[in-house]
């Protein structure tokens, strides 16, 4: 045997201690602080891609594309509000704060949503005049921190969203690090400039659904019962959370799965707390159905909505509308490959950049740096968002027509099958080619 010519084993990475894990251990050891980033979970999860529609054939009639009407509008807040919201498309813009986003980005979201005939939403830190001015329909978030909370703005809003949690961090509070606390952000939040701003995870003046019922009454009284009141929850125990939100008096429940994004949260929180959007919808709808409130209390689903198929699938599973955040930012220009050289300088790459908390976003979206923020043209970015929203709506319509539905809300679970056992169990639709719904009695 030639000892100089023995075959060598290849260097082999551990599946458990993979390069990303090793890098994180070294980073943690060097700094002593958890990793913080923006966005939602990056792990592979059962998702809408694991579902397929059963188009019409012999047993169902399709609708003619371009000739036969397929409605897309949605009413939100019909339970108690004197002035419910009517949107042209069931795709809304999720809550994102001025502070996390630049003023230009917030303006662009308002412009795009208004062109598309949908709503946008404030975030932690209050309402800016630009946002109100450019948003035909604006939902005002009511958060635990109450940063910038002002009754005048409450009255200016078209709806109020009481935020209990969000999918990226159910049970967690907000975080806006000092580098993004500019003079304007500091003033709006009544905080010293440059300090790390931590938002509480619990509301300061109510605890639990019984108190929330009284809080919602107060909000209704202050706004003379005009505004729809939403309650937003991160997806964890959707059956019970939705039932309790309904009991507390919500007009609309917003359910955010763990793919939903955040401006800045611990990586460990984003990746390990909460459940996927796909797993959350059916229990939420079940709660509404058990209470006789499905379609009476509207359900908005968010977390990982990317295209019209996702919209159609969410609606088929029982949602009344969806909300987009990450996808809306991408439509504005976030993570654009044209900025690759600048992402490289930040130690990232286009498509993976998530250090939104650092305020160095070369796209001018997740920043308070005036020079960077000025890079985003709110008019052009708003147009891109409007185009994207139109595509989502058209795509959802295309699928609905193929399934023979004259309105997106006529889509139903019966139109769907699943590609995997996991997705079939979560979405409670049959595994494709079978009548088997794992976990459900019977089947066909």
């Amino acid at each position: 045997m030639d000892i100089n010519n023995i075959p060598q084993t290849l260097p082999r990475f551990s599946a458990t201690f993979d390069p990303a894990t090793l890098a994180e251990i070294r980073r943690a050891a060097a700094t002593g602080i958890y990793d913080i980033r923006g966005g939602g979970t990056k792990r592979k999860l059962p998702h809408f891609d694991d579902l397929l529609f059963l188009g019409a054939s012999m047993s169902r009639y399709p609708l003619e594309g371009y000739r036969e009407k397929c409605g897309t509008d949605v009413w939100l807040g019909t339970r108690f509000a004197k002035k419910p919201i009517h949107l042209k498309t069931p795709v809304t813009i999720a809550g994102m704060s001025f502070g996390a986003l630049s003023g230009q980005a917030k303006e662009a979201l308002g412009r795009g949503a208004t062109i598309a005939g949908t709503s946008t939403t404030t975030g932690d830190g209050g309402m800016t005049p630009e946002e109100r001015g450019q948003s035909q329909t604006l939902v005002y978030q009511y958060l635990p921190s109450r940063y910038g909370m002002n009754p005048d703005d409450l009255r200016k809003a078209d709806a109020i969203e009481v935020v209990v949690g969000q999918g990226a961090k159910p049970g967690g509070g907000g975080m806006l690090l000092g580098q993004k606390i500019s003079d304007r952000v500091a003033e709006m939040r009544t905080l010293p400039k440059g300090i790390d701003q931590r938002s509480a995870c619990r509301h300061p003046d109510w605890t639990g659904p019984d108190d929330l019922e009284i809080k919602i009454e107060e909000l209704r009284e202050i706004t003379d019962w005009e505004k729809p009141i939403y309650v937003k929850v991160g997806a964890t125990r959707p059956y019970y959370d939705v039932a309790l939100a309904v009991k507390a008096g919500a007009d609309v429940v917003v359910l955010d799965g763990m793919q939903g994004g955040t401006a800045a949260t611990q990586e460990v929180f984003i990746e390990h707390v909460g459940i996927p959007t796909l797993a959350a919808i059916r229990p939420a709808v079940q709660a509404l159905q058990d209470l006789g409130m499905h379609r009476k209390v509207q359900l908005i689903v968010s977390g990982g909505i990317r295209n019209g198929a996702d919209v159609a699938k969410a609606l088929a599973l029982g949602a009344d509308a969806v909300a987009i955040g990450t996808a809306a930012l991408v439509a504005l220009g976030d993570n654009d490959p044209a900025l690759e050289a600048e992402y490289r300088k930040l130690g990232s790459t286009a498509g993976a950049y998530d250090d939104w908390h650092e305020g160095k976003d070369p796209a001018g979206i997740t920043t308070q740096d005036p020079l960077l923020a000025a890079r985003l043209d709110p008019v052009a970015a708003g147009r891109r968002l409007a185009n994207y929203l139109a595509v989502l709506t058209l795509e959802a319509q295309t699928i609905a027509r193929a399934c023979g539905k004259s309105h997106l809300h006529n889509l139903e679970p019966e139109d769907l099958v699943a590609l995997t056992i996991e997705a079939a169990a979560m979405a409670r639709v049959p595994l494709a080619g079978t009548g088997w719904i794992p976990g459900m009695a019977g089947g066909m």
Partner: protein
Amino acid sequence: MTTLDLSTATRRDLNGALHALPKDAPTADWTVLHPEGQHALAAGVNAPVTVTIKGHAGYYCAGMNQQATIIIEGNAGVGVAENMMSGTVHVKGDASQAAGATAHGGLLVIDGNASARCGISMKGVDIVVKGSIGPMSAFMAQSGRLVVLGDAGDALGDSIYETHIYVRGSVKSLGADCVAKEMRAEHLAELAELLAAAGVDARPEEFSRYGSGRTLYNFHVDNAGAY
């Protein structure tokens, strides 16, 4: 003087009428009879009017008040004067939890005691409590002044930002990053002004001042245990 009797009228009648008052002209005083602990009484008022509630109020009385003077001749439930922007709220009895929570401005006077979380996340309001306050008061308090003539419970001023706290009695414990501070001349003057505004006859020199140690304003690994 307008009198509204809640044994015959509804809360909606009351709040709707108060919301319809002119925002920029004084209005004759209002008296509310038989409140019977109802919630959200005189909530969302934005007018220079004095409203006297003859009895106990439930949650969120005078919530988000602007301009008005609201007097509660009884006890107040959770969140009295929450998120008040301006005006004055005077509780002649005791107040429950979260009195003055997140309030941005105005003056809240409580003749009796206030329960837990008094002044939580306060953002500019002045609060004067003639009795004692419960635990976790002034949690994450951002701005404004909290004056307590009695004692303070556990974890006073936990994670406080820039609120000034003055306590005449004892403090059971201070929360994270809340520290005792020197009472300088400007603080004595500030406190004297607050006591006068609340109609309290007390000497500022009898009080101790507490505020932020500012060690948690930006994360440092050596402070991790305080988070």
